[in-house]
């Protein structure tokens, strides 16, 4: 009898879970496994060719360029965003009237990328407003969209868009550290810097884990800005993996896409597992 109720208990979740799970299986998991299989097969004949597709993409110039740019972008943007947003939140929690500031910082999250395409041109074109200001101040004209500067414009727009998100996460993390902890330290004679480095920062590790992963995920969405402003083939410095996937898709080079998707999956998966390991060890 006892065994029976236990068994019944075990099936109750099925009607709740099934519709969603079926969709996830049909649209995400099963086809993903299929694309893993495809990555080891020839595109047309479908016969097994081992790692041939992988060796092709790694010799592909566009792929190496896109990987290089995407890695560079991530390595530059993530630390920059995380550090800037931390300083902002640390300063914010010293102030009283922060509600409005928080709202303003979050606002870019609501602004559709397409809305700003026009302003991008006005500001960053070779004959644009920023160049007019630079020249007015006696500087040299900068080609923002057709040189290495494009990389920094993209970095800037990524930080502009995601600053509010990360500031909010940091703020919550800082506010969650109990005041009694920092107060006790202050009574014991700790100065502000000691408080920051010995109490606040060590307690923020879980927050850092979340922020790193979410910002990494969002860093792939800069494709929207890059694509809407500069199209399928932007300047070399901002030709990202996302562009490449898109162009391969347009040309129906599905075998390469499969191999590259498996690689990106592997890297993201490893990064998540690794971060989680580090975090678990620390706590």
């Amino acid at each position, binding site marked *: 009898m006892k065994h029976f109720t236990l068994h019944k208990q075990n099936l*109750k979740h099925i009607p709740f879970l099934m519709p969603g799970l079926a969709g*996830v299986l049909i649209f995400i998991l099963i086809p993903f496994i299929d694309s893993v299989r495809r990555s080891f097969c020839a595109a047309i004949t479908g016969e097994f060719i081992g790692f041939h597709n992988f060796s092709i993409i790694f010799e592909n110039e566009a792929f190496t360029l896109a990987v290089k740019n995407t890695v560079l972008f991530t390595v530059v943007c993530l630390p920059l965003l995380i550090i800037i947003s931390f300083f902002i939140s640390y300063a914010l929690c010293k102030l009283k009237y922060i509600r409005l500031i928080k709202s303003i910082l979050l606002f870019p999250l609501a602004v559709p990328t397409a809305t700003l395409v026009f302003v991008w041109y006005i500001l960053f074109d070779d004959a644009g407003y920023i*160049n007019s200001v630079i020249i007015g101040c006696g500087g040299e004209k900068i080609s923002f969209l057709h040189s290495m500067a494009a990389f920094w414009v993209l970095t800037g727009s990524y930080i502009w868009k995601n600053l509010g998100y990360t500031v909010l996460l940091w703020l919550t993390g800082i506010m969650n550290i109990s005041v009694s902890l920092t107060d006790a330290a202050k009574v014991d004679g700790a100065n502000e810097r000691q408080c920051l480095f010995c109490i606040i920062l060590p307690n923020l590790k879980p927050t850092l884990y979340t922020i790193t992963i979410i910002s990494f995920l969002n860093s792939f969405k800069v494709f929207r800005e890059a694509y*809407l402003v500069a199209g399928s083939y932007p300047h070399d410095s901002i030709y990202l993996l996302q562009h490449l996937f898109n162009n391969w898709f347009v040309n129906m080079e599905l075998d390469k896409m499969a191999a590259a998707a498996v690689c990106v999956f592997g890297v993201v998966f490893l990064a998540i597992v690794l971060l989680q390991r580090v975090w678990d060890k620390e706590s």
Partner: protein
Amino acid sequence: MKKLRTVILYFIFMLISFVTVYPVILVILLSVQDSDELAEMTSSLIQFTGEYVDIHYIPQYPTLSHFIDLLIFTPEFYTVFWNSLLMTGIILVFQLLVAVPSAWAFASFRFKGKKLLFNMYVIFMLMPFQVTMLSQYIVLDKIQLMNTRWSVILPAIFSTFSVFLIYRGFADIPRDIADSARTDGANEWQVLRYIGLPLGKHGILSCLVLSFLDYWNMVEQPLAFINDKSKFPLSLYLPMLDMSNAELMLTSSVITLVPAVFVFITGQDYLEQGIISSSLKE
């Protein structure tokens, strides 16, 4: 000394805030300038003659006539706007219908493989679109939905991110409350309806706000799966216009912005909660 620091900090934040809203204010200001003023500004963008763009922050002859042109004489704009509204609306409704029960299953039942399954949901929630792009295409092509609005809608309905967010709201509900309803004879659907929904409301609403803002701005999916320009959402329509059409571009930019700002302002508390509960660890 401390006071001075506070003043300086507020001043710095004023600067940061200004930079943050500047581009949006610029779109709105430019959208009420009259055609001549706009043409003067964009002329050097179209053909560079040595003159640089100059922005008039105070419009010489402010006018709303471009908005009237757009809303009355540009039927194609309605098609595109309707596409965006339709796609986002359908996605949100069905996403809730699917994700709420799934989240409830994860939050209130114990079953074999739950942890593994949940971790799988989280992993796919964290994958960029490019990883699942090919997979989605394979399915959409098989069921012949490519180049229809459904090609964008269907995969989005089963987003695992919304399950995760709503799960977070449900997980905060104390177990005792649901258990006492069960001992009083409520079945699981009733527990979800009368306990889960009201108490987990904030998770559901924050999922709605975050999803709306993301799907209203969706670029990757329609770009890959829709060829037919008459099925494009706003986010792909705007960049198709060119500089000589500045009035149309600016006014449709502003109109695109309106629903997003509306949702942002009314749902700001839920947006903040949603962001906070997207934390992977407590």
